[in-house]
């Protein structure tokens, strides 16, 4: 199961846990399953079938380049951070 670190404002939905463990072979499945566990969370993470503009999904150490198709191994950490490249 992936370890999903939710944005701070979604922590309330998960009893203030730093992360929740969610099943899924890829990021799409994990977010879909998260929505089943905590209804209303998906809309903050996904828009028009892609990761919401302005967000980057960190899978492991760095932002995935595969979007919702990113495969996830057990215990992979997933974070959602502002997306930015640099100067």
């Amino acid at each position: 199961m992936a370890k999903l670190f939710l944005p701070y404002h979604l922590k309330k939905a998960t009893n203030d846990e730093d992360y929740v463990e969610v099943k899924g072979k890829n990021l799409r499945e994990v977010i879909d399953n998260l929505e089943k566990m905590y209804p209303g969370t998906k809309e903050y993470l996904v828009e028009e079938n892609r990761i919401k503009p302005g967000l980057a999904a960190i899978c492991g150490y760095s932002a995935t380049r595969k979007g919702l198709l990113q495969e996830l191994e057990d215990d992979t950490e997933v974070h959602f951070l502002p997306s930015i490249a640099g100067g």
Partner: protein
Amino acid sequence: MVNVSDSKNYKVIGTNPIRHDGYDKVTGRAVYGADIKLPGLIWASIVRSPHAHAVLKSVDTSAAEKVDGVFAVMTGKDLPHLADSWIDHGEGTENVAWSSENIMATKKVLYKGHAVAAVAAKDRYVADYAASKIKVEYEELESVTNVEDATKEGAPILLEDLVGDHIGKKVEKTNIASVTRHEFGDPDKAFQDAEHVVERTFTLQMVHQGYIEPHNATATWDEEGRVKVWTSTQGAFPVRTSTAAILDMDVSKVKVTPLEIGGGFGGKIPIYLEPVCATLSKKSGRPVKAVMERSNVFQASGPAPGGTITVKMGTDKNGKLIAADTSIKLEAGGFPGAAVGAAVQCIFAPYEIANTRIDGYDIVVNKPKSAAYRAPGSPQAAFATETVVNELADLHGMDPVDFRLLNASKEGTRRADGVVFPVIGNEEVLDAAKASDHWKSELGTPMKGRIRGRGVASGYWFNVGLKSTVNLTVNTDGVVALVEGSTDIGGTRTSISMQAAEILGIPATDFRPTVGDTETAGYADVTGGSRTTYATGFAAVKAAENLIEVLKERCSIIWSLDKQDIDFENGTFFATKDPELKFTFKQLAANLDSTGGPAASSGSVDLESAGGAFGTHIVDLDVDPDTGKTDIVRYTAVQDVGTVIYPAYCRGNIQGGVVQGIGWGLNEEYFMKDDGSQANTSYLDYRMPTALDMPNIDVIMVEKPNPGHPFGVRGVGEVPICPPIAAIGDALHDALGKRFYDAPMKPGRILNVLGKISD
């Protein structure tokens, strides 16, 4: 050079070949955007708001249209009316409606210099004259030019339709576009348990990247409805994406040709002139060129945000950091999008701290829309954190480098925004700083009437990956033509070629690298985020490996052997079962025609981060306590650079970043007048360091290879601007016994802190 890696015995990597663009650059033959001349070319002049904040009541262009020599006039209403939508630039998104309004206002002007109309005429003088005839009626509004004023109760609202996202709560009628929070552990309890707690608030002013070449663009809109653009940019493909989106057309209808670039540092990622020139071309039927005046570069392009940062950190009795809390409020400018997200990622990155809270605020103010500037957000963050860290080291009576080593983040450390670090070189950098001649040396004798001080600070940048493509073609003389889509700012044509050369076993000088346009080169994201040598270099490695496979096929044809019986090593193709059969790269190139003609290959990547990099800087400065004048007398920058590809570039890149950071720390600022306009809009008044101000900057490159790259490349260009502001503040404290919490630490501010003058 301190080398902590098991470096391989490279033949090309780690050498300093003559750069491919060198002769053109030093002889003046290199072609920049302002050099472009096309048949029938006319010039654009842009009308800009004299007010920092006003409703745009009306724009009357009739008088300008009657000026002899005028071919076209436009206002913001000539650009497509776009609904809110987002375009993706890889890691980084752009709201097209805001970008369009930033390029030319239709409703309100949000900063002095905001474009409201444009004229195209037979030359720039006629264009300027005609532009002066355009009558614009404004309803002036109160302006706010800093984060405190913009967030006060009753502050004028810049964007009436902005709905702020404040930690998930939708808020209307606000200048705070977003508030984000990251929290781990229990910082409040940890502060209660702490031996020492230091809390300080820092202010920084807006600063400009200071590139020498101003923004420019030339565009044609042809009879097929296709737009061609020539411009100075950090990314031709992102310019294509933005231009197409703002003109509401398909990307393939826009062709962008990047010219040589006279500096960017993040400021040449956004676009300002391209849709304007294209629209004027559509109206006039001629190619249209625009080149910004320096004052407009300052007032109407994208500088780095100023803002206010509060940092609170606590230690246990052994000096171990146990808690940290920060509030980062950055000026976005007229539209949302300050670099607060990056600042959040960087602010506590050099340290392992169990209990953290980070609040980030993106706040619109009546200043030009901010843009990236070398490690956007990180220098501001480092000024705050590193100053507090130095104070805590003092409270514990510890050497500040030892304090940092005790608390250093390392592989496996959870960054304060939650992400776990992979292999990083933070501790190795600190070890190298501690072992450096500079850190071990005596301070020496200051200049007469001066007091000398030494300071130290660290910094971090996360280094991105993203998309890149490289195409290779072998000429019959054995020279390889390399086409890349990454614009070359710091010599990347050579550092990319070197990586392909290492694979092919030929010298880098046997490459002819070219930066292609959007129809000749494969896709590449911006040259930014310290990504090009890493990602485009990786693409070059892939292209070279693919080329070897192509060339093995050719050998198999010539030698009538199976491809599997052919191998390649050190630039030589050979038959594994017959040592007599072999070709050097050049010999094979000369025999390609009869084996199927040109040999070509391509490599492309879409990479994740190169892994973060760290720097620790040491500075000695002399300060005159009577005048506040400072002189940097010695500077050493220590940085984790991954594997060094081109040492001279690497060193120069770090030195350049240091100089920009010193300018930020000592003198540079947008000096704002009460009417919301910038007072210092030329290089006469905007005080940047020159060669006369700088000593030689020593660079210690620590090689901690990135395991995710064939040669271990990380990224170099952004880390060096992060530590200087804080390091300078620490040196001033060492000299004067006073801490500095406001940048720049200019002479007047130094005298103010010393109590010799008042504000």
